[in-house]
């Protein structure tokens, strides 16, 4: 039988762990709300950008040479942009994203493509470094203060890399936020850009100033930046959702453990009392002689 002091100590340590997990759950819930709000606020802008872009791109193809960011080529060199988190303790969040990216990596290599990685978040960097992937760039610490500026930095890097080093395709791998308890890994083609199909009757022939090409030169990178920002927000919301769920189950596991230990403690205490009584009675009997 474990002694009373040990059990008491364990109950104390489980209780303080539970306090931490409960606090982390609350923090994650608050951050999740913030991230969700940011997604909602970005939505009209992202949608309009895509619409405007599509209306220009749909027409640019006919008259002018296709823009490099729109041109479709055989994917010989592929960049996978993997969005993970800087911090752990978020359930299967990082594991599932890394697994999905890894699987895609093997698929692409089997098809004969050369695969490079741009990793966002410390966890993904560790994973792919261990597996000796070709990481062209890693971004860490951008989740501490996620703004359009640092999303823009990632976006600009992707566009530069795409145009300068002859990439043929670029995919975003991130956790899409479904709800606080469910996230889904998506692999989304980012480049070349796929314009929305616009129905004929809605297609207005715009006057383009200065020219379609000049507009596309500005619109396409902007679109990439917006998409990256959106994916980052989705990923942040998913991360906090996953952490919230993980911390919730950790808190209730701690509760179960405390119950079990308390029972054990009471039993041990009872046993100790009984033994003591037996000793006293035994002693008294012996004295009677």
């Amino acid at each position, binding site marked *: 039988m474990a002694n009373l002091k040990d059990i008491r100590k364990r109950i104390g340590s489980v209780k303080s762990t539970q306090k931490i997990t409960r606090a982390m759950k609350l923090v994650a819930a608050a951050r999740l709300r913030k991230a969700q709000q*940011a997604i909602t*606020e*970005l939505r*009209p*802008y*992202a949608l*309009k*950008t895509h619409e*405007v872009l599509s*209306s*220009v791109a749909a027409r640019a193809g006919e008259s002018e040479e296709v823009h490099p960011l729109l041109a479709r080529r055989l994917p010989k060199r592929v960049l996978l942009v993997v969005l993970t988190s800087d911090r752990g303790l978020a359930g299967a969040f990082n594991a599932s994203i890394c697994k999905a990216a890894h699987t895609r990596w093997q698929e692409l290599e089997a098809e004969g493509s050369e695969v490079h990685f741009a990793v966002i978040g410390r966890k993904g960097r560790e994973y792919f470094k261990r597996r000796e992937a070709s990481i062209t760039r890693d971004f860490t610490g951008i989740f501490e203060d996620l703004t*359009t500026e640092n999303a823009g930095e990632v976006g600009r890097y992707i566009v530069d890399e795409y145009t300068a080093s002859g990439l043929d395709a670029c995919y975003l791998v991130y956790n899409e936020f479904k709800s606080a308890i469910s996230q889904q890994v998506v692999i989304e083609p980012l480049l070349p850009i796929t314009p929305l199909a616009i129905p004929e009757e809605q297609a*207005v*022939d*715009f*006057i*383009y*100033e*200065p020219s379609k090409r*000049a*507009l596309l030169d*500005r*619109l396409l990178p*902007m679109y990439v930046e*917006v998409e990256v*920002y959106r994916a980052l927000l989705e990923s942040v919301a998913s991360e906090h959702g996953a952490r919230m769920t993980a911390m919730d189950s950790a808190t209730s596991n701690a509760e179960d453990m405390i119950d079990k230990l308390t029972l054990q403690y009471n039993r041990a205490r009872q046993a100790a009392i009984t033994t003591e009584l037996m000793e006293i009675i035994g002693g008294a009997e012996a004295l009677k002689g």
Partner: protein
Amino acid sequence: MALPDRLQLEVATPKELVLEAAPTSVTVPSVSGEFGVLPLHLPLLTALKAGVLQYNVDGKKHVAAVGPGFVEAGPEKVLLLTDQYATPDEIDADAEQAELAAAEAELKALGGSQTGSEWIEASRRADWARAQLQALAIARAL
């Protein structure tokens, strides 16, 4: 069909849909100069530069500073996509003066090379500060 006498004006930034209004006319700063939009304008798509957006609602003139982006103008609708937006009450004249001076000093220090990312960043900051000061000046003159 009755001719529309109002436009639907929307300004969207990555943070939110900042402005929705129904003005009778709109003036927008584009890369090829300022241009006005009245109802029944021909469909036009152009790039915005940092500058002052002006619009009239029921005879009252409104002003706001906008950053670079895009504008889609049509017969019924004007849509601005921009990364920055500020109304005159949000603009702090002293802070923007300081910002403008700092950005210009940086530009001067960088000298002739007008291509590096630092130069682009500094000139972006200078343009945005200038646009806000301009908007404030126009708003005060009203």
